[in-house]
């Protein structure tokens, strides 16, 4: 696999966390340092305009990969290269700064990711001004209005505070903020798991529409296999810090290769199981 052909290239990413006891306890009780290998030797590529998903259960390391992808956390080993520029060290500060503008992250909890003391207008305008994508704050305001309409809200919502909005609306605001810096690459860490299903459908549809309109590249982190299958072109399955399998989305569910993937798919509650159970031998429950 040669260098510049993929938009995002992740190579041999590893990260461990120190979970040792405090030094005094180690001194008294003995025992050395202990580490958790959160991510071990993970490599994958993402093409421009594609949605690549990482699924796994809690503790599988998927969120740690997400954080390393956008530079919120540095890897112990391995590299992340986006559009030819490495975010893990070698590139110059100005190159990294230019790159940071092009990538953004959407978090799981829309209640925690928006500053409650800022009006929505300021929340969305801030990355534009900080990364100098617009020349003046007047331009930032008109751009904010455009973005709010783009994500299905109204320009007047600029003057309101986050607490005035529902979870789904807040996630729309978070998406508008991610787009404010003209990001091309968005890492979404469980973007809909705090939302109700009908609202989840609204947000997933919005994410797809924006991808088609703006040519966005997504890395979607989720524990929900159905969401991932609906959204992603390719899926990587993580288990205990390792990427155990990468396959095209439809293919993964037809012919999962790894035992863990098979177990994961098998345990998802399915709507159709109601019909299967009804027609099985178990009779009427009530006498």
């Amino acid at each position, binding site marked *: 696999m040669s260098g510049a052909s993929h938009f995002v290239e992740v190579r041999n990413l590893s990260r461990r966390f120190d979970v040792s006891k405090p030094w005094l306890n180690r001194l008294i009780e003995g025992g050395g340092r202990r580490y958790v290998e959160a991510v071990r030797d993970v490599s994958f590529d993402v093409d421009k305009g594609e949605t690549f998903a990482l699924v796994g259960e809690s503790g599988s390391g998927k969120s740690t990969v997400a954080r390393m992808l956008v530079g919120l956390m540095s890897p112990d080993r391995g590299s992340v290269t986006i559009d030819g520029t490495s975010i893990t060290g070698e590139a110059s500060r100005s190159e990294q700064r230019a790159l940071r503008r092009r990538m953004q992250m959407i978090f799981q909890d829309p209640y925690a990711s928006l500053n409650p003391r800022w009006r929505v207008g300021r929340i969305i305008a801030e990355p534009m001004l900080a990364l100098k994508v617009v020349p003046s704050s007047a331009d930032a305001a008109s751009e904010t209005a455009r973005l709010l309409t783009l994500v299905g809200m109204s320009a007047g919502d600029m003057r309101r505070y986050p607490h005035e909005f529902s979870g789904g609306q807040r996630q729309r605001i978070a998406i508008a903020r991610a787009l404010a810096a003209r990001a091309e690459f968005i890492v979404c860490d469980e973007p809909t798991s705090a939302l109700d299903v009908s*609202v989840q*459908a609204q947000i*997933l549809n919005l994410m797809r529409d924006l991808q088609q309109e703006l040519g966005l590249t997504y890395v979607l982190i989720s524990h929900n296999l159905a969401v991932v299958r*609906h959204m992603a072109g390719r899926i990587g399955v993580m288990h205990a810090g390792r990427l155990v399998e990468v396959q095209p989305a439809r293919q993964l569910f037809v012919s999962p290769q790894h035992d863990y993937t098979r177990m994961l798919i098998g345990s*998802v*509650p*399915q*709507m159709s199981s109601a*019909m299967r159970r009804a027609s099985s031998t178990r009779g009427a*429950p009530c006498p």
Partner: protein
Amino acid sequence: MADPVLSVRDLRVEFPTRRDLLVGLDGVSFDIHQGEVLGFVGESGAGKSITGAAIMQQIAAPGRIAGGEIRLNGQRIDKLSRTGMERIRGRHIGMVFQDPLTSLNPLMTIGDHLTETIGVHLGLGRRAARDRAVSLLEEVGIPEPAERLRSYPHEFSGGQRQRIVIALALCAEPELVIADEPTTALDVSVQAQIIALIRRLCDTHGTAFMLITHDMGMIAETADRVAVMYAGRVVEIGRVADIVAHPAHPYTQGLIAAIPSLETDAERLRQIPGAMPSLSAIPDGCVFHPRCELADDLCRTRRPVLAGEGDHRTACHRTAQAEYAP
């Protein structure tokens, strides 16, 4: 048909505030029979958890049960005194909550939890209580139960803790267990095990379960019947297989179509426009009409009641031959 274990009729729960009166539940009626799992599904704020809390008389003040009746094995329990209700809780109705860690005391061993509860409800001696605790843990699938009695809650995984909470709920062989989002905090593989456990207990002990969840897939795997709630009302109730295959209420149809599936492909998910009304702005007529494509003048002015043939009933003017509320 035998008498239901739990029978709820026209339950109404109100929350008076300084400005106005919020109605949390309005005209909720249902029965749960022995050995049956009745699922309650709906989005946040639909009133699923309030229904469970009302049955346990655990509505936080100033909220109150303002009307209707709740019968357990034919006896009214909604008017019971505090001490009267304490004899019902745990003994006749068990509870399982979403977060197993907050339902367990971190300073008590699992053995203390179980033997105390068994002692209070069944009046067994220490040795008999301990034996029962071991057999309960064994039943819910905790390996080496006799040794684990000395362990504290933090020494168990999330799934094991939820099994322990289920064992606690079953201590006194209650006729009914109310499980409020029992698997929401758990991974899917563990969730599947808890679902299997609930089904098995239901089939072997004849325990009736009231299963509250936002997850339609969980309902499909576990429940016999399902009640779909919206803005404090039951909008559709019936056998799970019927409702999943032929949802009648436009809200149920939208809810099911909004779920991405592992089995079918769709370019776009169906989305229900707007959001559920807040309790301070419940619309007149059918509560769903502002979001409904089929709504007409009747829907805007008259409230539909649950109606329909057999045990599949729907509160909708447009899809059922509804009788009209006065």
